């Protein structure tokens, strides 16, 4: 059901609907700002023999043509999370390693002139053989993406939790399968924007960019520019046109434009165009998973072995290989499986570097795990829903410590499944299938049950190192969230917080949370979320990613509001001549609980700290600004045996769907889709459902449409929106959204993240339905008509 009139209108909307948004390219730039155009590699792998820039430099209006040699002189390679001999700078040096890699930068008075001059830059390449397929790239005969690394398989770690060997020995059956998850992006409609200034007098940088965080990448940029953090001021605009993880990867261009500003002595602006974005911005990594399960006759999974090979393209940018490790603690998903062996392998290939993307490792993991439950059902002649039920973690085991170390906070997975399947929904799905099949049509049903982690432990990625290496480096753990409540002279309230805006309605929800504590209406609270690293509070965990808002920043805002409320109670008590315990904040007043007529307007009491701080109760610091700092203790570092609580809260999603396959066009049509979410306490149902619908559409896109494809030689084949199919309204089916709430006991709000669940659950749910419809074991995503045709032909 679509809610027609939300309870609370979004604070963001009036401006955005009126053309008054303030996105990066809308903001004014200093007079004299130059404009940059990036020249990119047409080859997947080649030596740069020569770059001729004279003709371009002679062009009217051109200020500079910057190449890798300039970048090498003025900057350092980017810091990485894993030490690999694969240095990356802001421009290619000596060699290009993927189609679209930045090779030179033309800086001119206008973008039009920069693009004209770019055609005068002559670059001579000597082509090399390219490594494209991830498995082939691991062979010893494969071309090396980075010769210094001596291998393309740059990180391999093996983990053993429980006693997998015994589990496999005791099993009735071993069921094995291989899945491949495609490379794709969720292509925000606004591309990257950077405006960089350099102050030569102080050797400092001031950069505006639609960067999304995490701000652990701020030191990466500052170090590359060879300045301390405070000399690299980064400002994030108030609005950003979507991100979905992708806008982390604007950071190499922040450095590049910073260098261009330094070289030219002028501010430099760069706006990425769509062709550049598709060929070179960022994407999620593709993964090959080989999975083996030790299974009892009744479908119970006794043990698992996973070999996960993840393809990060040409460079391992920080914080990669995040997707491979973000799910490490929850590698057993929603299931009570005590024994699991995991082998994580990172491979580099001659493709665009991969990085953050909504779902972040979840879609890859669950494609394997949830295809497996469907295969178990087929091979053991069981009902797939029974296989899921039989393996789900029982409600009484929460909080539940998984084999790999995650601490699942709350849930009743079986109950959520029963609710979703109830009310005749499962019968209806089966009836539609049976009717379709009776008429000779191709129809299948799919399920998926997944755990959705939120708010990453900053220490999870250190699991990529051995315990000994971690000891040497020092422990990493936790995740800090911060929000501040400010009071102005007339008692008006503003809120700032450590998030970047990308459409998640943070203004609205923060106003809701803070106003609730202060007895005000959300309309009384202004929320200002543009972020400035020089003036705002932030930690390495700041930004908008890993669904950290509901269990992180929202809690910090609640804490800040409670701190402010308690101070105002004390101030109010003195002015009302009552005890603080008798004071409440309600209806825009601060009043006596026992005698509500004894009341003062909120603004009158709240302004006291500005006008008469000497009158404050003894020993009280003025109540002008309160910052909530939230750092949950559950986010411990990895243990010596590599167990890691990868995230802070863990939601649950159960999906079921019916699909029909057209025997003429080979198109997959989603006929019915039901999605059940347990995200703890829902902070705002309209916004929650909006996030779920958005993730669902992206899940459908991954299942059926979107893929960054390359030829065997590494040519990029999906460089426009005509080749790379983003679904329109015609391609997105209806989804019935259901909620079940198991509040998290670990946070005062009880809320968990929920914006990534369907990116994880939907691709595999649809894949399972296709497998059921066609009676096949292997379904490759996206299940395009060409691939469905091959499956149908293969079955004949």
């Amino acid at each position, binding site marked *: 059901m679509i809610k027609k009139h939300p309870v609370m209108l979004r604070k963001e909307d009036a401006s955005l609907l009126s*053309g008054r948004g303030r*996105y990066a390219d809308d903001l004014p730039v200093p007079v004299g700002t130059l404009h940059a155009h990036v020249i990119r590699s047409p080859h997947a792998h080649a030596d740069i023999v020569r770059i001729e820039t004279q003709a371009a430099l002679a062009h009217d209006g051109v200020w500079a043509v910057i190449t890798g040699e300039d970048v090498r002189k003025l900057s350092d390679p980017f810091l990485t999370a894993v030490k690999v001999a694969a240095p990356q700078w802001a421009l290619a040096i000596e060699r290009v390693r993927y189609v679209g890699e930045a090779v030179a930068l033309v800086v001119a008075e206008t973008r039009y002139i920069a693009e004209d001059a770019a055609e005068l830059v002559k670059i001579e390449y000597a082509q090399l053989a390219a490594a494209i397929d991830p498995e082939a790239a691991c062979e010893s005969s494969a071309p090396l993406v980075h010769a210094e690394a001596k291998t393309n398989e740059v990180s391999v770690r093996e983990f053993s939790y429980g006693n997998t060997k015994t589990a496999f020995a005791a099993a009735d059956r071993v069921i094995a399968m291989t899945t491949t998850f495609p490379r794709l992006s969720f292509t925000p409609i606004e591309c990257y924007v950077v405006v960089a200034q350099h102050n030569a007098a102080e050797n400092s940088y001031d950069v505006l960019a639609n960067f999304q965080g995490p701000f652990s990448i701020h030191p990466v940029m500052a170090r590359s520019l060879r300045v301390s953090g405070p000399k690299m001021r980064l400002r994030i605009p108030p609005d950003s046109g979507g991100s979905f993880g992708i806008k982390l990867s604007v950071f190499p261009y922040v450095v590049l434009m910073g260098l261009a500003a330094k070289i030219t002595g002028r501010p430099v602006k760069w706006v990425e165009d769509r062709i550049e974005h598709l060929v070179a911005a960022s994407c999620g990594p593709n993964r090959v998973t080989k999975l083996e399960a030790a299974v009892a006759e009744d479908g119970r999974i006794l043990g698992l072995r996973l070999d996960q090979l993840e393809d990060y393209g040409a460079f391992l940018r920080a914080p990669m290989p995040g997707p491979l490790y973000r799910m490490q603690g929850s590698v057993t998903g929603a299931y009570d499986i005590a024994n699991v062996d995991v082998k994580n392998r990172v491979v580099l290939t001659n493709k665009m570097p991969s990085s953050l993307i909504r779902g972040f490792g979840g879609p890859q993991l669950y494609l394997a795990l949830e295809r497996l439950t469907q295969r178990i059902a087929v091979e053991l002649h069981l009902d797939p829903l029974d296989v899921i039920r039989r393996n789900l973690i029982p409600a009484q085991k929460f909080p539940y410590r998984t084999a790999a170390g995650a601490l699942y906070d709350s849930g009743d997975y079986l109950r959520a499944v029963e609710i979703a399947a109830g009310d005749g929904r499962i019968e209806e799905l089966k009836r539609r299938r049976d009717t379709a099949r009776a008429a000779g049509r191709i129809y299948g049903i799919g399920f998926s049950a997944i755990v959705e982690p939120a708010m990453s432990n900053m220490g999870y990625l250190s699991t990529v190192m051995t315990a000994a290496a971690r000891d040497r480096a020092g422990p990493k753990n936790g995740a800090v969230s911060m929000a501040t409540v400010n009071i102005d002279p007339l008692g008006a309230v503003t809120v700032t917080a450590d998030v970047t805006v990308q459409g998640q309605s943070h203004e609205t929800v923060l106003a809701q949370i803070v106003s609730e504590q202060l007895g005000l209406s959300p309309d009384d609270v202004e929320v200002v979320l543009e972020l400035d690293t020089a003036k705002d509070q932030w930690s390495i965990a700041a930004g908008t990613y890993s669904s950290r808002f509901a269990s992180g920043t929202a809690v910090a805002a609640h804490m800040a509001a409670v701190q402010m409320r308690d101070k105002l109670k004390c101030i109010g008590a003195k002015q009302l001549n009552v005890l603080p315990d008798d004071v409440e904040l309600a209806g825009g007043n601060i009043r006596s609980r026992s005698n509500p007529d004894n009341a003062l307007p909120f603004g009158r009491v709240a302004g006291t700290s500005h006008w008469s701080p000497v009158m404050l109760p003894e020993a009280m610091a003025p109540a002008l600004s309160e910052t909530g700092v939230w750092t949950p203790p559950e986010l411990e570092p990895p243990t010596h045996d590599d167990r890691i609580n990868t995230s802070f809260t863990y939601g649950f999603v159960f999906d079921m769907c019916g699909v029909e396959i057209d025997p003429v066009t080979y198109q997959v049509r989603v006929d019915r889709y039901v999605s059940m979410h347990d995200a703890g306490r829902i902070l705002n149902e309209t916004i929650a459902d*909006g996030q779920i619908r958005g993730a669902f559409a992206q899940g459908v896109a991954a299942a059926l449409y979107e893929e960054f494809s390359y030829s065997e030689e590494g040519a990029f084949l999906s460089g426009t929106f005509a080749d790379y199919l983003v679904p329109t309204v015609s391609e997105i089916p209806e989804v019935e959204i259901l909620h079940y709430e198991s509040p998290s006991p670990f946070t005062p709000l009880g809320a968990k993240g929920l914006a990534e669940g369907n990116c994880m659950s939907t691709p595999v749910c649809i894949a399972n339905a296709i497998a059921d419809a066609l009676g096949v074991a292997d379904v490759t995503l996206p299940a395009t008509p060409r691939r469905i045709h091959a499956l149908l032909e293969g079955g004949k």
Partner: protein
Amino acid sequence: MRRLKRDQKVRVALTLNGRKLSAEAEPRMLLTDFLRHALGATGTHVGCEHGVCGSCTVLIDGVAQRSCLTLAVQAEGRDVRTVESLAAADGTLNALQTAFRNNHALQCGFCTPGILMSFTDFLARNPHPTEGEIREVLSGHLCRCTGYANIVAAIKDVAGQGDQ
């Protein structure tokens, strides 16, 4: 027919949201760049510059068009309307904008101006469309945040179909 030299800037005069304006433009300048960077009307957004995403849709003489596929000089003497024209001078949202707000039909808001302008044109010609017609027009726009359902609901709402 007006003859233009490739490298010579020309003054382009048009009516933008009811006000006569003019500014210099090279003959090759896109209307999007002209609106945003010469006239300061940044409400019109650029999402793909190849006519697929629909973010840059504006009305030219009342007809919805992709401003990224239009040259500034082509708008000479014409009446251009952008998203900035929709709300009243005091900021009050019009019915279409209000329906988007009531139905949570936008998240990041970047594609929204183009969708609003497409439907400003379409609903003026066809005030009571069927859901199929709404979907057909909307399929000319890409939105990555919402999954579209709430946009359809908003337009049904404003087209008087909210109760159907």
